[in-house]
């Protein structure tokens, strides 16, 4: 069984996010982490490998800056990684990334392709569904469970009021939602071993993609501006003995906030 996991690095959204003088989101110096949704997928892929044997391949479109996220996935138990790095790639365009990932995955021929249903930073939530559409393989998004039954996967697709259990023949693509698997903490041994695992860096020529298909000219969407969202102002702590504080709060909800 070969499982490919598409991994991206994101800014830690718990951290303070700032804009530079040009109004761009500052990632320089910010805490970068493996994208949490991709991490769910990596964990599940590694669990499947541990149970069934095979290989987990990490695939990333990005730059050397993404190596920490890739290394993290390798330390969790993935076996090797492919990094597509090329100055001609517009990495902000999900379509461009989907075209590249599809080309790499066509060559790799994995049984299962996974990744996050969206990323924790830009959250465009469309790269991997586009990959499946380009490759013509079946997909199920927002999965919170995955079991294998021979050449078939039984997955739980999250609904707004529950889950839908879906059976899909492999090869197929699945996008991870929280709940799919609880990411492990790599041990010191895992981390030391991940150093020895290969990261194969390729450019567009190596995977046979015309740069014009993935460059700025291919953009369907342009960002016009970023702004920091004004923070919500905290109000007041209602002090005093608990029964008094509760009574006062209820009164305020009725008289001041007018929500009761």
């Amino acid at each position: 069984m070969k499982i490919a996991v598409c991994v991206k690095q994101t800014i830690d959204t718990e951290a303070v996010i700032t804009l530079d003088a040009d109004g761009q989101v500052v990632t320089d110096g910010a805490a970068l982490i493996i994208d949490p949704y991709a991490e769910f997928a990596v964990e599940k892929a590694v669990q499947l490998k541990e149970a069934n044997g095979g290989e987990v391949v990490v695939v990333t479109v990005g730059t050397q800056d993404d190596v920490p996220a890739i290394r993290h996935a390798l330390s969790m138990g993935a076996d090797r990684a492919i990094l597509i790095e090329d100055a001609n790639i517009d990495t902000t365009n999900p379509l461009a990334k989907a075209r590249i990932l599809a080309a790499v995955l066509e060559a790799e021929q994995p049984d299962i392709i996974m990744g996050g249903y969206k990323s924790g930073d830009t959250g465009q939530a469309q790269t991997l569904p586009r990959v499946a559409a380009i490759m013509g393989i079946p997909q199920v998004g927002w999965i919170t469970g995955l079991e294998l039954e021979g050449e078939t996967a039984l997955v739980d697709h999250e609904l707004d009021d529950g889950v839908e259990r879906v059976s899909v023949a492999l090869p197929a693509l699945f996008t991870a939602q929280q709940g799919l698997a609880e990411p492990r903490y790599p041990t010191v041994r895992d981390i030391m071993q991940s150093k020895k695992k290969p990261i194969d860096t390729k450019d567009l020529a190596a995977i046979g993609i015309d740069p014009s298909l993935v460059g700025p000219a291919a953009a369907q969407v342009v960002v016009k501006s970023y702004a920091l969202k004004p923070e919500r102002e905290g109000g007041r702590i209602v002090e005093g003995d608990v029964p008094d504080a509760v009574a006062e709060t209820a009164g305020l909800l009725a008289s001041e906030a007018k929500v009761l």
Partner: protein
Amino acid sequence: MATIWVFAEYKDGVIGKVTFEAVSEARRLADAQGKTVSVVVFGSNVDDAALAPLAQYGADQVIVVDDPALAEYTVDAYAAALDGLIEAHHPDTIMFVASSTGQDIAPVVAQHQNAGLISEIVAIEDEGGQPVYVRAPYSGKILEKCAFTNNDDLNIVTLRPKAFTIAEPNTSRTATIVREAPAGFGNIRQIVKDVLRVASDRVDLRDAEFIVSGGRGVKGPEGFQVLEQLADELGAAVGASRVAVEQGWIDKQFQVGQTGKIVAPQLYIACGISGSIQHQAGMGQSQCIVAINNDPEADIFRIADYGIVADLFEVVPLMTEEVKKLKA
């Protein structure tokens, strides 16, 4: 005449409220740009009566595809049906609700139709006659304004629930209902084995005007019963933080936050919730927030309108009594 489509959330014979938000917004955009609004409804045994409100919120036309193959959502069947409709009618914008279904199907159709997709928009602005779409990425810390490079192509957006207001229903409006049968659904590769709906008698989280939500401090499934008593008194939905869900105290569908549901009720009562950025991303737009936590350092107090630093098991029953008194 150019048309804006809204893809409806239809389930158990009912159009979800979130769809009315999208229809209302589509109407506003259509009026500004001189376009019409069509709502696309997929399902099996779709009842015309359920479609009536769509006109009141602004639909000019309702396109229904009624087929047993659409009884349960599968991305292949839904995308094939929608692809067929698009190729027959050429809408210029399609709006989906950014729900688990809408978010799932929108990128697939976008890829099939070579369309651009802007996901989870929270507002639409006008810039020189062209629409500019506002998103809130980075857990809602950033407002991003973006536009399609070509407004003549098919463009697709998904709308974040609760971000758009529902228009006052206009009962005099009517819409034509067109029933269409697609040539087929292609090869449906996802086979739905089972649908496990976690029943809840309560109002849907995303529709709720009041939410009582619990986190780590609730300490277990029994703790949620205390919250439910307050919720009963308020007619509120019960929500939960990620910790409570991961501990297995309450089902995932009740999770509020970045990886759960995004809500914006009139009143959000956070009980024993620390208020991580992820949680705030899901409830920061609430009109009024009350925080109950025995940790005075909890981040939730930074955004709460009213805070009580005390044990929730002491506060919540008292609050239930206070609400009773207010209602009396």
